[in-house]
């Protein structure tokens, strides 16, 4: 059964560190569970950062040489590692009894559709990949090398990908929009190089476009400019107690994958 979702949508003008961003998103997921408040958040990073998928190994040999100097933090969500540099990130946290509960994967397609439309209005064309890529020897380390059917691609190049965490019926979905080529992963061209022929993408305008269209996905939306102040102590506590350990596994694990 789907019930209307109250939802706050915000595009943050200030950047934050990796540990702050991940702590904020976990607080928003917990708020979705405890207060039934949904969120859609667009944000960027104060320094180039790698986020690891929840189950990815964190061992020196798994990090590409050119990225070894960068900050690393683990996401709650699954999927592959993302290099957050010349990149726009979103998080969407929804309470249980949302209309995607029966098929949570549909949330990928619906949010990607919004992003595709927003990019099109900025002059950049991309489309759903349509067919998932198979990697019999194991999924690549970086998200942008992986291939899900709901990815947005320009030709053979992935420009938008997402992953989820599902907790008590609630959903946290992280997604990444590759704006431009990073010096730390030059094999991945972004929107800037692929479709705009060197013209600058207006990221602020793109964010506004995404936020405006996102209102059509949720009921009872409220646009805000920043994280609610009342949530800041919870964010600070998570930064101190959990995320300050950067790429370490958060919880003890019995699995065969090792932590730091």
């Amino acid at each position: 059964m789907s019930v209307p979702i109250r939802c706050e949508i915000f595009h943050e003008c200030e950047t934050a560190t990796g540990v702050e961003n991940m702590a904020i998103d976990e607080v928003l997921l917990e708020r979705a569970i405890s207060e039934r408040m949904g969120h859609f958040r667009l944000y960027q990073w104060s320094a180039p950062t790698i986020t690891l998928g929840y189950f990815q190994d964190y061992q020196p040999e798994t990090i590409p040489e050119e990225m070894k100097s960068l900050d690393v933090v683990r996401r709650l969500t699954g999927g592959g590692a993302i290099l957050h540099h010349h990149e726009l990130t979103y998080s969407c946290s929804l309470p249980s009894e949302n209309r995607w509960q029966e098929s949570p994967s549909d949330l990928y397609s619906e949010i990607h559709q919004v992003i595709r439309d927003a990019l099109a209005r900025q002059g950049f064309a991309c489309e759903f990949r349509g067919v998932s890529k198979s990697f019999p020897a194991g999924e690549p380390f970086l998200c942008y090398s992986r291939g899900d059917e709901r990815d947005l691609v320009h030709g053979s190049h992935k420009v938008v990908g997402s992953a989820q965490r599902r907790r008590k019926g609630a959903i946290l979905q992280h997604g990444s929009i590759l704006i431009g080529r990073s010096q730390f992963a030059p094999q991945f061209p972004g929107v800037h190089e692929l479709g705009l022929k060197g013209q600058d993408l207006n990221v602020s305008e793109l964010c506004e476009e995404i936020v405006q269209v996102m209102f059509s996905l949720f009921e009872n939306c409220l646009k805000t400019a920043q994280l609610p102040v009342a949530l800041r102590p919870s964010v600070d506590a998570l930064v101190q107690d959990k995320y300050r350990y950067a790429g370490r596994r958060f919880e003890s694990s019995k699995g065969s994958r090792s932590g730091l």
Partner: protein
Amino acid sequence: MDPAELKYTKTHEWVSLDGDVATIGITDFAAGQLTDLSYIELPDVGRTLSVGEDCGVIETVKAASDLYAPIAGEVVEVNGALEDDFDLLTNEPLGDGWIMKLKVANATDVDALLDHAAYLAHCETEEH
């Protein structure tokens, strides 16, 4: 396991009580949402769990989903075979795909769970 003999949670776990030990797994409904399972993290044997506590994580290619303790108790066994054969969980969630066994702290926790008819009614509600 006979589905009619099990107890259930709204978050799609099942419980089978034998004496003071409960076997716990996920339902067909939950297993049906796990396509391309890639990792599973199980709780440590000896860990004491409270009702509703997060105790593990299952990852598919694009999502990580938490596991919960439907009842309180001490973990006395986990199904290590799941780490080597994910098909057990997706193909036989009510049988060889069981997840863990708990020494039950309070048997009345089990009484408070849904019976089969109530669980099916809950799934109907989610689907509409």
